[in-house]
């Protein structure tokens, strides 16, 4: 299927975003071909930053949202119409800085949405400042002597918040990433994939990730075991990628709506209103 648009791609040559975008295209194409997903039911949203341009590069329904708010935006869509498949793309500064509350609460309420984070540990479009996931000592334009803060741990954050699908991928392992995206899109509940995605201009981490990542699925990790997932989320020497944790829990939208589809046309409840008024 054709997911291309006429928008000119303005990412740097070699940018990790390409790997993420192409993996997502593959995942969507395969799921549509397999009959597991309908492209017209999909809506994507993004925040602000290099990753934000993703919405322009995909021929899908989209809402180019604000810094940190894409997950809130798609949550609203899912409340309005639970038949939609909604995906938020966010950067690491976007998701864990400006928008951290929304990530935590989206996991807490288990809204049926997918959040894919372009995690490159640097603000690219604003030309190289440290982010919530930057290593301690990271020298950026706002931290010229090196970051004095500990980096945030996105996987532990989402696990602790109640996320029902928690995974990490690496754009250098494309086929594996496509598999993760497919699982995330099919998961009923809040799915979170933190994607390691080097910024070739301000924080080129390709070689580091190539050397230290390993695939969880190759080592017999039990993704239904929270304690095991918690342990894997906290590993730093070797970096595990793959599905850390997946459980089923009732979704926020199902519990809230109980079959109601607010976006579907219907007559206003005039007789109910008359009744409510007459009771007073």
């Amino acid at each position, binding site marked *: 299927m054709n997911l291309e648009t006429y928008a000119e791609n303005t990412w740097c040559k070699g940018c990790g975003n390409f790997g993420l975008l192409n993996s997502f295209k593959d995942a969507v194409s395969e799921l549509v071909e397999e009959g597991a997903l309908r492209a017209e039911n999909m809506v994507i949203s993004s925040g602000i930053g290099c990753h934000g341009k993703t919405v322009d590069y995909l021929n899908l329904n989209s*809402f*180019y949202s604000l810094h940190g708010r894409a997950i809130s935006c798609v*949550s609203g869509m899912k*409340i309005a119409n639970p038949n939609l498949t909604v995906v938020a793309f966010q950067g690491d500064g976007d998701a864990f800085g400006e928008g951290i509350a929304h990530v935590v609460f989206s996991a807490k309420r288990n809204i049926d949405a997918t959040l894919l984070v372009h995690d490159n540990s640097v603000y690219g479009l604003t030309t190289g400042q440290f982010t919530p996931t930057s290593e301690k000592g990271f020298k950026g334009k706002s931290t010229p002597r090196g970051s004095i803060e500990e980096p945030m741990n996105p996987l532990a954050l989402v696990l602790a918040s109640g996320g029902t699908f928690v995974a990490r991928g690496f754009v250098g392992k494309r086929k594996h990433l496509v598999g993760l995206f497919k699982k995330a899109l099919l998961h009923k509940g809040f799915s979170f994939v933190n994607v390691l995605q080097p910024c070739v201009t301000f924080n080129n981490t390709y070689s580091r990730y190539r050397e230290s990542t390993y695939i969880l699925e190759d080592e017999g990790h039990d993704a239904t075991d929270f304690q095991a997932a918690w342990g894997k989320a906290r590993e730093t020497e070797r970096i595990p990628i793959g599905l850390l944790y997946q459980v089923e829990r009732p979704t926020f939208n199902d519990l809230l709506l109980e079959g109601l589809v607010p976006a579907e046309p219907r007559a206003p409840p005039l007789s109910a209103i008359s009744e409510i008024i007459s009771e007073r």
Partner: protein
Amino acid sequence: MVQDFLTVIVGGEAGHGVKKSGNVISILMNELGRYVFEMDDYQSLIRGGHNFSVVSSSTSPVYSHYMSADIIVCLDKRSVDIHKDRLKDGGTLVYNADTVTLDSGTGLPMKTWIKDIKGIPLMAGTIGVAAVSALCGVEFSFLERIFKANYPRGLEANVELARMVYERMKDDEGKFELATAETPPGHLLAGNEAIALGAAAAGLDVYIAYPMTPASTVLHYLAALSKKLGIAVVHPETEIAVVNMALGSAYAGARTAVGSSGGGFALMHEAFSLAGMSETPLMVILASRPGPSTGVPTYTGQGDLDFALNVGHGEFPRIVLSPSGTNQAFEKAAELLNLVWKFQVPGILLTEKHLGESWMTTIIDPESVKVTKPILYDGPLEQYGRYEKTDSGISPMLYPPAKGTVVKASSYEHDQKGITTEEAGKIEEMQEKRYRKEKAIVEEMRDLLTITTHGEGSTSLVTYGSTTLSALEAVKNVDDVKVVQVIYLRPFPDWALWEALSDSEVIVAELSVSGQFENLLRSEGFDVSAHIRQYDGRAFDPPELAARVREAIQ
């Protein structure tokens, strides 16, 4: 002698059931065929402090409450100190004889009685209701019926207390012989309830809000009625989440509203501009409170007018309107929801505690509300562009799923398909397209009720919002003054106001220290000869406002 107008004040601590007693007195008056206005004054605390309710009623419409009362019921000593001077000549003060001793008035041993029947402190309010009822000569069986409908818990104890009150007050029974009518003149609703129901009548599908007084009761009311009305009601983590969820919801085709007070709406500021840029319909209920920052949460004021008119970075059209009473709140809430969907713009219903949390006799017909369908795209799908250029500036909408095309909305400047652009020509084109809607909105407004005029006179008392209610009561006692209310504040209906104000002197009354409304009128070219301002968190008391109007005319 039969008395038509009656004001009752009930005061006590939070936890004494003050508001409930005010509500039940209102219901009683309504059942007696009388129009009611009830103002509840309460502090931002859970227990103790001082709360009071004022119920003014008459067989003809009552637009606002009066602070001088015929009957004052004081459930504690503090209420006596605060309210005793507000008693009108010939009025009756009922007080709690267990906590205070007075030379005049009617002392009832409230605490003792409640203890005797093993009741709870909340029942002090019940004693207050029974005292008012006895003074007004209401038959006990009638009161019992009101109690049955309004005290589902502890009914027997409440009736028992009422009996004790009637017994003790035998000599004063019927001291106030009230004018009554056969049937209740309408139903009692608070402004926020009327706003919620008006939006529901216009097809509200989703309401999202974070609690903030005095907007919270819209959230509470809709949450309680969500099943009955078929409306999804959500209380998320922050106001920022509220508004961004709301935009997603509206993009997906659900008529969505949000509500907050100034501080919470300040957090929505960024996404309000996103609504403007992405042309996503958004209805905001802005219930302002007095003072900047946290201000005075449970009191009334109109200091957010400039904020409502100017909120948002960048330039985009929006609608700001402010209703006065519950009837108008119902109609205008419905109208605003229709308009924001017709023009795909954000709109603000600006209100205050004086409307939002006061109970008024309300006469509305839900069947009179029509849902205006938004302009939907019906052309060839492959040609669809979310931001198609049109003469009116309104681009036909589609909601996902729309097989055969995609719907792309954007916060970034974009082309007609919704794809990002930074080209000079396209930026200009889109800015102009959006701005054209301003003109289209003004054209639409020419057929709408944008201002109201009440009475006749060579002087116009110009107001907006719930201050109009105080003004309508005030001018009952001032000659040659009409009240002119401006409902639409942006776009400003200058054509309608010129007509209403022709050849009259203008006095502006508002609850603002800097005179924001007066400044708005001046900026639209209107001469203002005098202004009356109040900024103590209280609505105008009609007689005081009347005196200030008379002073301004001389």
